[in-house]
């Protein structure tokens, strides 16, 4: 079972075991992880589920779609090369651990 590790801006880490195919945003919401707002509930409209992927995790995911690209331009905290919207991230097969860092603010 893969693990998603959420690292809050203050460095606190939470590990959650998930099934392949789990959504990174929804997993955080269900586990009450602070720091992900996800106001639009995954419709890619609000840019409030912004995360930074750790290097090794980044390559595991599909590329950024046009819609996600548009939304990443609207995130509250600086966009970095490793920035993604967690609502667009589904845990792929063949990876043990995904590490996402959460920004200090979502807006």
């Amino acid at each position, binding site marked *: 079972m893969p693990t998603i590790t959420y690292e809050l801006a203050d460095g606190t880490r939470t590990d959650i075991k998930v099934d392949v195919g789990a959504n990174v945003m929804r997993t955080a*919401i269900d586990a009450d992880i602070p720091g992900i*707002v*996800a*106001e*639009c*509930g*995954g*419709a*890619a*409209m*609000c*840019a409030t589920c912004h995360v930074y992927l750790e290097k090794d995790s980044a390559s595991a995911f599909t590329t950024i779609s*046009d*819609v996600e690209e*548009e*939304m990443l*331009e*609207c995130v509250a905290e600086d966009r970095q090369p490793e920035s993604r919207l967690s609502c667009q991230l589904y845990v792929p097969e063949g990876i043990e651990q995904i590490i996402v860092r959460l920004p200090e603010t979502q*807006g």
Partner: protein
Amino acid sequence: MKFQQQPESRSHSYPVPVEGVTSLDFDPYASEVLRDPYPHYEMMREAGPIVWLEKYGVYAVTRYDSVRNVLTDPETYCSSAGVGLTNFHTEEPWRQPSIILEVDPPEHTKTRAVFTRILSPRALKKLTSTFEAQAELMVDRMIEKGVCDGVKDLADAFPIKVFGDAVGVPKDGREHLLPYGDMVFNAFGPANDRFKECLANLGPATEWITNACQRENLTSDGFGAELYAAADAGDISHEDAGMLVRTTLSAGLDTTIFTMGNALVNLGRNPDQWAVLRDDPKRARATIEEVLRYDSTFHSFYRTTTKETELEGVPLAREQKVLVFVASANRDPRHWADPDRFDVLRKATGNMGFGAGIHGCAGQMIARMEGEIALRTLASKVESIELLGEPILHFNNTVRGYTSMPMRVTAKKH
């Protein structure tokens, strides 16, 4: 045009409803249901994760998880057969299908991307100060009047002004947008008397809206102009741009008006909740979210199966309409603690008032912004709101709101 209600012969190999599924002769569009649908939703939720509605020949889902599962699986539960009861694959729709609401990927993805850009949080930020100034004017006027109508003076007036300006439609005749929207939302349900009466009384609304969506009648800096600019850039066709202006207007006005009215009604009926907001106007955004959950504007719409599938253990044939009750999901005790309590301190995100998944409302961020600004302004300036008599409910097949709400407002003392 023809308005058939019974689905035509399908390729299914199952008797409907499948054995074991509760079959109900319940009509979700009956006036007595629309008056207070929530006890009926509870009845359906308790009858099972999926029920059969005999009158319309459709399955219905009412629990949070089953609603979410349907809405987030557009490959199985499509929109291109129409999001109303009419199956566009087998019956003629009352108007041309919308190229964003009633299409599937990959066509949908392209159109959706245009809206994502035009209605992005970054784009909306530019409108904030204009919206705030307008809200102040309107709330000040309500305070001056003392006795006013929460719908006419704020819930109606504010979106008609700021959203109409944001889209860039002509100022004269905007009242025609409301019966047109009413028609669109009635059409998500059956061709019942309510639908027929609405269609018969549309009057000049269709003509007005058709003209308003023409490029030459739009302002040069609104969402309408931006949709045509997207056509110039080759993202969509020019004909599509006109249709999308129409969709923006029909989807974006009645709905925000009703949501704002629903907010005022529930704050008026729950003085303790109003007091929480009044003492901390920053809670306006969370309050709107709770209004969307507790008293959803949008109640139900359909998806259609693209293939034989299984939902909650029930085998479904291809071309089967599934009625999705988002307003019921928003009150499902399996997901929400104390769901029938209006609580502005609640974390109501995750409610499906704007739908969910790839067809989740494209205008939800501007709708939230309008609601937040109106409520925050009201809460900053007003000490108390008091409903004077029972607000007048509007009856529509799929959306719920009020047309009049006499109330007394008292200014805050500074």
